């Protein structure tokens, strides 16, 4: 069974930590490990922060998130409205080139790299609003464990 959650937020960095609190707890409920919960938090932070900082035309813009989960994975979709008329430059090729051109130890430009590294799959695509759709996927490996933990 596919579960579907929708979240529509004002495009403000102030609210990112609320999204992360939600996502972290959701990931835990779905069955992700503590380590993977941390990774999911990092990836969603980078993608949402980008949508707000680079992908929103103004303070009154919105970002949309969708959480899709089933027994084998969690997929998170983040959609923004775009800052400029089009984002055609944002092809897979550009992303790969950008990541290769990254200088470790510099102050910015590590977000997409981190999100790619910490997710199992990441895709970025221009959308019809002139913004970007990002999809990040996390495979679920459930370790069955009993409710009780007796010491």
């Amino acid at each position, binding site marked *: 069974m596919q579960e579907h959650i929708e979240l529509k937020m004002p495009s403000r*960095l*102030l609210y*990112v*930590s609320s999204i*992360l609190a939600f996502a972290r707890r959701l990931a835990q409920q779905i069955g992700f490990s503590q*380590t993977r919960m*941390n*990774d999911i*938090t*990092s990836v969603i*932070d*980078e993608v949402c*922060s980008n949508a*707000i*900082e680079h992908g929103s035309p103004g303070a009154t813009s919105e970002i949309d998130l969708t959480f899709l989960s089933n027994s084998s994975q969690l997929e998170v979709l983040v959609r923004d409205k775009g800052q400029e008329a089009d984002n055609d430059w944002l092809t897979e090729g550009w992303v790969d080139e950008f990541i290769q051109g*990254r*200088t*470790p*130890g*510099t*102050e*910015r430009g*590590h*977000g997409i*790299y*981190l999100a790619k*590294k*910490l997710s199992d799959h990441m895709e970025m695509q221009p959308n019809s609003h002139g913004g970007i759709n990002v999809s990040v996927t996390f495979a679920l490996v459930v370790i069955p464990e009993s409710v009780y933990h007796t010491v």
Partner: protein
Amino acid sequence: MPTKSLTIREDSDVIIVDVNSDLGSYEAAELRRGLQELIGQEAEKIIVNLNGVQHINSTAVGALVGIAKRLRQKSGDLKVIGTADHIKRTFDLIGASRVLELYESEASALAGFK
């Protein structure tokens, strides 16, 4: 950051900043402002303690790298305490570990200034 997310202490000429909230881009801006204020007040040796932090994003790591560079220009330095695996992993992946060592304890960070 809402209230009480940063606590400032002093150990002789070293200023120790304990961070008590997760660090995303919003909180990073506030941390940067706070550290710049300290530098404006002639602080040269600063320790940022991330042991109260579960999550840090790339912008916040970048802010710490930037502050370290600024302090090094005036022959001061920034040392960062961070022992959580996920914090270390984030620093490593970004490559920040090359310019900003993560110390295991306050004692070792303080010793780093000697």
